[in-house]
């Protein structure tokens, strides 16, 4: 539509028979303000397929016995428009039954970025064909999620499992105690004052006009490690380390020589001053930002 030379190409539905489930989770007070989300797992109970239906399917489509289950986060925006973000997608066998786990950590990360966090978490689960095309099987029709256990034996409602760390134990402690002796091996991660003296640097002489120096701060100390390694989610995850999680820029006035004459100029150097130190997993992916 944004091209100057466009032709409308009409499409038609090839397949429109995915079964969709909308899950709603009330999240109020589920995540304490001083906690860090490590992993969120959605557990759905897969109903055993009827034996007769399985036999019929094997006869008709002997080579395909899987369906694709996709979990999306549903965001109802302020203007009423719906937006979905892909969270997890995997193949499920029609012969399986019981609890199936999906990693929905990213959905919680998105939900936490909302301006109105009191709204519930909406997850859309769809079951689709593994492949499209004339020879596609109908295996997806045999994958169903239920809220009742097999034979009505107890509830099997969708479950959201939140694994968190209490930052009062596993986080950084703010600024280091200036009264205490220099940071020792076991000191908990903190932000320590570090003055950078620009006047004392030979190269800055006659070049850097402002500032004469600045408080850069640095992150020192160590972070408490959880008892169980988080290998379930990220197998290559390293230990928790004390890092600069928020930084700010440093403006400077420098002297620039142009046409044989020196003139002052303002320049801003990014990430020069540490604002906040945090404990973070080494190698963990940076959470995606929610697009406006």
């Amino acid at each position: 539509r944004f091209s100057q030379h466009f032709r409308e190409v009409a499409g038609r539905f090839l397949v429109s028979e995915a079964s969709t489930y909308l899950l709603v989770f009330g999240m109020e007070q589920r995540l304490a303000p001083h906690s860090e989300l490590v992993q969120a797992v959605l557990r759905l109970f897969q109903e055993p397929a009827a034996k007769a239906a399985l036999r019929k399917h094997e006869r008709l489509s002997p080579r395909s016995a899987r369906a694709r289950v996709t979990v999306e986060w549903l965001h109802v925006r302020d203007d009423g428009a719906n937006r979905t973000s892909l969270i997890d997608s995997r193949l499920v066998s029609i012969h399986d039954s019981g609890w199936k786990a999906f990693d929905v950590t990213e959905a919680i990360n998105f939900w936490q970025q909302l301006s109105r966090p009191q709204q519930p978490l909406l997850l859309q689960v769809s079951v689709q064909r593994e492949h499209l095309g004339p020879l596609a099987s109908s295996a997806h029709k045999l994958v169903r999620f239920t809220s009742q256990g097999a034979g009505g034996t107890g509830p099997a409602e969708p479950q959201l499992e939140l694994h968190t760390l209490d930052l009062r134990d596993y986080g950084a402690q703010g600024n280091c105690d200036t009264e205490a002796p220099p940071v020792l091996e076991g000191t908990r991660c903190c932000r320590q004052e570090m003055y950078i003296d620009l006047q004392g640097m030979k190269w800055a002489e006659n070049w850097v006009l402002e500032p004469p120096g600045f408080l850069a701060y640095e992150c020192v100390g160590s972070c408490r490690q959880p008892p169980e390694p988080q290998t379930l989610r990220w197998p290559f995850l390293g230990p928790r380390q004390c890092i600069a999680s928020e930084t700010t820029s440093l403006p400077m006035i420098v002297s620039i020589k142009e046409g044989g004459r020196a003139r002052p100029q303002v320049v801003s150097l990014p990430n020069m001053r540490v604002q906040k130190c945090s404990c973070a997993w080494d190698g963990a992916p940076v959470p995606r930002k929610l697009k406006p």
Partner: protein
Amino acid sequence: LTEEQILGSLLQQLHLSEVPVLDKADRAQLVTPAHVRAQYVALLQRSHGAHSRGK
């Protein structure tokens, strides 16, 4: 934060490959105009307010 990192960042921001040669005489006759100082102060205030998040 090391001295080399500050120098490297400064050279990068100014698109320079090496430290410029400026003598004391250049510095002595240099007066920072009010608008340059105002720009510096505004950036200073903004950097105190806005933090960038990230590892």
